[in-house]
């Protein structure tokens, strides 16, 4: 094993699809300590590889599938893996996280990560086991849905799978990759698979990651499981109502995106709520492997029991297109899964198409509130039929062709999630600055602070930048370790959530916006946080699983390093200074015409954010990169920044 650390398998696989060859990819313990794993490892690998102007469908774009060191080591909720690549939707790096089994199986085959390069001559399936890598003709599977593909693969291959459906095959710019029932949904990673003719990957093995301190890790895992099961968010709301349970609180807080983000409340919200889903449609809970929260919904479509919709799909295919029929959303969710398409970007693009029709600009046949032709539309988008091929390119490209940039609701080309940010300005900041585009989690997920979990003033910009940075850093590292983002919520003190009207809660929440300077100090001088806190079991787990030094400070540092690594990789790829923008509807038009504060004061927020991050207009300074230990040469940096800040 090529490592002195535990937890890792010690090997990274490099697959050349053009030559049909596989070989080891050099990855040292220094690399492991610098990047931890997951999306940070992938970001680092891509940073060393990408060059200015590289595009998603270039043959030398890489697909980097990475796991975390904790995956497979018995930690609860830690079986997730990551796929990163240059995104065809945004032309910058996308990192897409997935709760399927593939990462677990990849490690059991002996690999911490696998990189796919080149382009196969024809449809191909790559099979990875501890006894070698084989290339199989993928033609028999080409055209199959993600579900059918995996069912067929199961007849010949044990273990876990990655599969694309028709959307990825047809390079829908938000085509996604499936592992079991879960999606690596965002950014169009499926389209890159399709471009490389990579229909599917299988992984199987019997190896088990070895850990540094078995007994201490076991104790940590048991405490961690208990923390998750007893916390009000992860132990009650998420299992009972799923992420869908957010619909009602979002409505209350005016952040339920309605009619292509023209409002924050929807009269029919109860009909598409998590409560409605749980009471009248839920067959049982589902879960990713190793999860003790078990928040997934299982529902019926016709006679099949299938995965049910998450919040984003409910919100964006519900209120955001003026639809109050939950059964249709349940069906579309399944169709999107089978076609292999990101429900968020698809819904956002459809909503944009609907507004284009409403404004008399172009008629795709799609109208707000009209639901009888959506299934057909999904199919046409996935197969790029007629002018639905435009919708398959996403809202930014559509607005370049048809106009309507002010209401093409995307940031850096990727459509926003279901949270309307004009009533949660911290989330608005996050959407704009998130590395991969309009992602709510990459954004620091401020909505949990700005009203959903507890209630910090959602319209004030104070403190939001600092909190965004801290959450972003923490969540980045938690993801890199292999854990589900929902484990981050256990960090939030239970009393702030359980006792919203307690005087102490009210006091803490009133003070929250003013903790900015303290939080910034902590984010910057992480050495202060050289401790392990029971609310962050992850840092203990990394210590006991890998043997690496690991504290809360390490996590904040890994997180900051990871964020900056992806950011500078994007600059190298051609992202310009000042790219972190939101459409005018969100920054110039108040959600409530009577309250001018109900819009995102992006300039104010970004000024504070960039100063704290050590970025100039979205471009990291050399000093900050070096302080954080980001691996990049001065030469590459200077050339990229020169291009990014060039006028004209």
């Amino acid at each position, binding site marked *: 094993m090529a490592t002195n650390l535990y937890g890792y398998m010690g090997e990274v696989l490099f697959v050349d699809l053009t030559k049909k060859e596989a070989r080891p990819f050099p990855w040292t313990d220094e690399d492991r300590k610098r990047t931890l794993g997951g999306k940070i490892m992938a970001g680092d690998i891509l940073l060393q590889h990408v060059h200015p102007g590289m595009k998603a469908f270039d043959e030398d774009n890489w697909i980097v599938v990475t796991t975390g060191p904790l995956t497979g080591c018995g930690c609860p909720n830690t079986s997730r893996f990551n796929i990163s690549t240059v995104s065809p939707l945004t032309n910058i790096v996308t990192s897409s996280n997935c709760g399927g089994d593939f990462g677990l199986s990849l490690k059991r085959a002996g690999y911490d990560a696998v990189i796919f390069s080149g382009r196969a001559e024809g449809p191909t399936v790559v099979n990875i086991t501890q006894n070698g890598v084989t290339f199989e003709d993928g033609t028999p599977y080409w055209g199959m849905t993600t579900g059918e593909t995996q069912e067929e693969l199961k007849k010949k291959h044990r273990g876990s799978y990655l599969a694309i459906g028709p959307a990825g095959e047809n390079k829908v710019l938000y085509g996604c990759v499936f592992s079991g029932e879960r999606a690596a949904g965002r950014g169009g990673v499926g389209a890159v698979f399709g471009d490389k003719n990579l229909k599917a990957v299988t992984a199987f093995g019997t190896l088990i990651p070895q850990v540094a301190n078995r007994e201490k890790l076991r104790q940590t895992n048991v405490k961690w499981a208990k923390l998750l099961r007893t916390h009000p968010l992860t132990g*009650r709301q*998420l299992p009972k*109502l799923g*992420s*869908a349970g957010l619909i009602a609180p979002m409505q209350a807080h005016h952040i339920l995106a309605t009619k292509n983000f023209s409002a924050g409340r929807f009269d029919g919200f109860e009909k598409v709520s998590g*409560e409605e889903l749980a009471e009248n449609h839920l067959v049982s809970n589902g879960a990713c492997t190793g999860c003790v929260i078990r928040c997934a919904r299982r529902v019926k479509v016709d006679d099949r029991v299938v995965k049910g919709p*998450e919040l984003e799909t409910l919100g964006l295919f519900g209120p955001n297109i003026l639809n109050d029929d939950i059964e249709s959303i349940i069906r579309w969710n399944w169709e999107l899964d089978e076609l292999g398409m990101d429900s968020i970007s698809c819904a956002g693009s459809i909503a944009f198409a609907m507004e284009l029709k409403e404004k008399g600009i172009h008629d795709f046949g799609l109208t707000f509130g009209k639901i009888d032709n959506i299934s057909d539309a999904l199919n046409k988008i996935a197969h790029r039929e007629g002018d639905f091929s435009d919708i398959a390119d996403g809202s930014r490209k559509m607005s370049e062709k048809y106009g309507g940039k002010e209401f093409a609701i995307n940031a850096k080309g990727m459509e926003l999630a279901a949270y309307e940010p004009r009533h949660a300005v911290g989330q608005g900041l996050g959407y704009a600055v998130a590395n991969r585009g309009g992602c709510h989690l990459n954004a620091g*997920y401020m909505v949990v602070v700005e009203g959903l979990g507890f209630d910090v003033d959602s319209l004030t910009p104070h403190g939001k930048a600092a909190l965004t940075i801290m959450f972003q850093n923490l969540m980045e590292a938690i993801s890199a370790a292999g854990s589900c983002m929902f484990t981050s919520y256990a960090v939030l003190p239970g009393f702030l959530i359980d006792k919203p009207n307690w005087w102490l809660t009210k006091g803490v929440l009133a003070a929250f916006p003013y903790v900015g300077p303290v939080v910034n100090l902590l984010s910057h001088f992480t050495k202060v946080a050289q401790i392990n806190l029971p609310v962050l079991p992850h840092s203990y787990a990394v210590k006991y699983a890998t043997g690496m030094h690991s504290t809360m400070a390490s996590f904040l540092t890994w997180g900051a390093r990871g964020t900056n690594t992806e950011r500078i990789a994007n600059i190298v790829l051609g992202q310009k200074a000042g790219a972190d923008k939101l459409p005018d509807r969100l920054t110039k038009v108040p959600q409530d015409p009577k309250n001018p504060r109900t819009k995102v004061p992006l300039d104010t927020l970004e000024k504070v954010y960039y100063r704290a991050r050590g970025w100039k207009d979205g471009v990291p300074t050399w000093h900050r990169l070096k302080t954080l230990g980001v691996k990049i040469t001065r030469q590459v940096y200077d050339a990229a920044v020169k291009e990014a800040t060039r006028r004209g």
Partner: protein
Amino acid sequence: MAEVTVKLFGVFRSDTHLASEVVHADSVLELFVPLNDRVDEVYAENKALNPALEKPDPIRWKDAVVYVNGEKCKHKNDKLSDGDEIWIMSPASGG
């Protein structure tokens, strides 16, 4: 006493199996009394069919996030009027 509609969401709804109730109360704080009476009634009905059912905790002002006609209620003694719609929510998170 004002006649108001109380709608429950979140864990309050899933724990009590109550979705929407009409109650009579003069203030926000007061509505919790008839509301919890209904919680007990519904529990008794359901328990007859399902003896294993656990008794839900009473819903209390300090644990709840309360909206009156779409506005967040900050003071428990706020007066209610006929036809008011009250939302009682629990905090949530997700992705």
